[in-house]
């Protein structure tokens, strides 16, 4: 077998379909790495060895019979999924104590699509509890480490899925985003991370955090692989009424283009709080793309500075409602079961949720409570509409928007954990697009002088993922 870690998902699938690579061998290698290097990073909560090996054997058998068709674009490719995505037969924990012992009785649509495409689900990855966090330190199962430097955070909340791609344990993993939880860790670990258009990938089987922004998103090491991952997962699903029937092109075959993009530089994204080295690297990317014939224009997204305030009101409100289902009755943990019902509820929830989740449930409950709804939730929803209009106006003038993904490179474990507001500002450049439903991608480009990865973000109009993959491909090629 060629060096496993050097293979992209595309190369693995092509090799498997041509009978040159064995899905079982690839899967065994991925599982071996998951148990060693993945363990050192604390990146997995569960390894799905038994089912993975069965799936892989079935793929190899299909190839032997000569029946594996191009309809299996991920044939034999080991893939990891965030532990808030339901997969039957294994625990789905959301990295929370409150879901102790929970085994979902159905598969997420995204998982079904992956398996139909021939992918092998090798494990469920660690994350911030219920996807709330930007450092992956809010996990009941302990923090994930950044593969580049184990003293640093990988970012969050999809820290495990990102770390396993950066460590080359799997070529593709899936995370989820509510306000930057795929793009921000992708930037901090040096891989590609996509937040699709709201409605791009079905959320059936994704445990809900904030339903008006939650999206599943892929992580990969190349523009081609992330395009491949998205096209397999995307599409309308009758089990998620917010999923959109969009005629997706075969993205991975349309990466090469002569198109010259008109790209907006939002002045508000280069203001106070942006690390100098990150700023320099984004400016280098702009220069490189200018040389290649793309044009740039300064634009304004005036509501940028309000995005984090809007984001925390709206998503905490939705979370307080979504997380009401964890009551010690239907699944997971139950405490004080011999006392009255109300005591059982409040004791179970107090024991089962971690500090950040409690903080957001408290904030959400407060902003939705009688007398405060108009001042907080309604007001935030109105400003959210203004954020959406900012993007609408900008995309009348430009094809894409470029910015940093995260204001800083990876920071030290423990550095921001006691300061929730500073931690929340990690999402300053990603939250707006989540609130407006727009797609965004983080492209690994450049490093700090200490060798830490930096991410360049591109944002696009709804369902213009093709442009995101094309510009990612252009930047990746011109960088190498």
């Amino acid at each position, binding site marked *: 077998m060629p060096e496993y870690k050097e293979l992209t998902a595309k190369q693995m699938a092509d090799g498997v379909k041509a009978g040159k690579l064995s899905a079982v061998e690839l899967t065994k290698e991925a599982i071996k790495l998951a148990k060693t290097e993945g363990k050192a990073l604390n990146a997995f909560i569960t390894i799905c060895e038994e089912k993975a090996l069965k799936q892989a054997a079935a793929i190899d058998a299909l190839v032997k019979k000569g029946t594996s068709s191009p309809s299996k674009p991920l044939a034999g490719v080991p893939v990891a999924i965030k532990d808030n995505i339901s997969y039957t037969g294994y625990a789905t924990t959301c990295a929370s104590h409150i879901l102790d*012992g*929970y085994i979902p*009785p*159905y598969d997420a649509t995204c998982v079904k699509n992956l398996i139909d495409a021939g992918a092998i689900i090798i494990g469920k990855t660690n994350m911030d509890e219920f996807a709330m966090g930007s450092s992956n330190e809010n996990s009941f199962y302990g923090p994930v480490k950044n593969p580049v430097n184990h003293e640093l955070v990988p970012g969050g909340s999809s820290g495990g899925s990102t770390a396993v791609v950066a460590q080359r344990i799997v070529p593709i993993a899936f995370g989820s985003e509510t306000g930057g939880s795929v793009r921000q860790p992708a930037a901090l670990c040096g891989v590609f991370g996509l937040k699709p*258009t709201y*409605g791009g990938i079905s959320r059936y089987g994704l445990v809900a955090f904030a339903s008006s922004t939650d999206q599943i998103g892929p992580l990969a090491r190349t523009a081609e692989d992330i395009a491949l991952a998205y096209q397999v997962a995307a599409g309308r699903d*009758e089990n998620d*009424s*917010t999923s*959109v029937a969009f005629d997706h092109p075969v993205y991975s075959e349309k990466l090469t283009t002569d198109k010259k993009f008109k790209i907006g530089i939002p002045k508000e994204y280069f203001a106070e709080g942006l690390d100098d080295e990150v700023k320099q690297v984004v400016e280098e990317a702009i220069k490189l793309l200018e040389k290649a014939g793309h044009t740039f224009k300064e634009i304004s997204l005036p509501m940028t500075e*309000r995005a*984090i*305030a*809007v984001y*925390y*009101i709206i998503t905490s409100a939705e979370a*307080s409602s979504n997380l*009401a289902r964890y*009551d*010690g*009755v*239907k*699944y*997971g*943990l*139950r405490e004080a*079961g011999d*006392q*009255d*019902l*109300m*005591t*059982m509820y*409040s*004791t179970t*929830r*107090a024991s089962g*949720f971690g500090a950040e989740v*409690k*903080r957001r*449930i*408290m*904030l959400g*409950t*407060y902003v939705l*409570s009688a007398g405060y709804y108009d*001042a*907080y939730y*309604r*007001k*935030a*929803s*109105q*400003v959210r*509409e*203004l954020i*959406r209009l900012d993007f609408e106006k900008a995309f009348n003038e430009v094809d894409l928007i470029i910015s940093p993904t995260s204001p800083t490179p990876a920071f030290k474990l423990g550095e921001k954990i006691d300061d*929730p*507001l500073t931690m929340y500002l990690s999402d300053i450049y990603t939250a707006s697009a989540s609130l407006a*439903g727009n797609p965004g991608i983080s492209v690994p480009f450049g490093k700090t002088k200490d060798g830490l990865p930096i991410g360049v973000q591109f944002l696009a109009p709804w369902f213009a993922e093709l442009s995101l993959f094309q510009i990612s491909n252009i930047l990746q090629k011109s960088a190498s």
Partner: protein
Amino acid sequence: MPLSKEQVEQIASLARLKLSPKEIEKFASELTLILDYVEQLAEVDTAGVELKDQFITAENVFREDKSRKSLSRDEALSNAPDKDEEFFKVPKVIG
């Protein structure tokens, strides 16, 4: 304006969270900081801004009014901390 201990206790009770005195103190100061930060939205002029429930798929989603396969009772009960053959079991409702 700082949140009082009583306000935090009231929110915790609405959210069904049994907090320790230490947590109540911690949340009072943390939530006050966060609420102070989000106060800035009052500065934004939102007169006449209308709200949309769903902005990308601004259309109703219908399906045939026919029953579909759903979880069986056994599957639905499979994760319950306490149950019998047919029902979820809960502690007494009136204390």
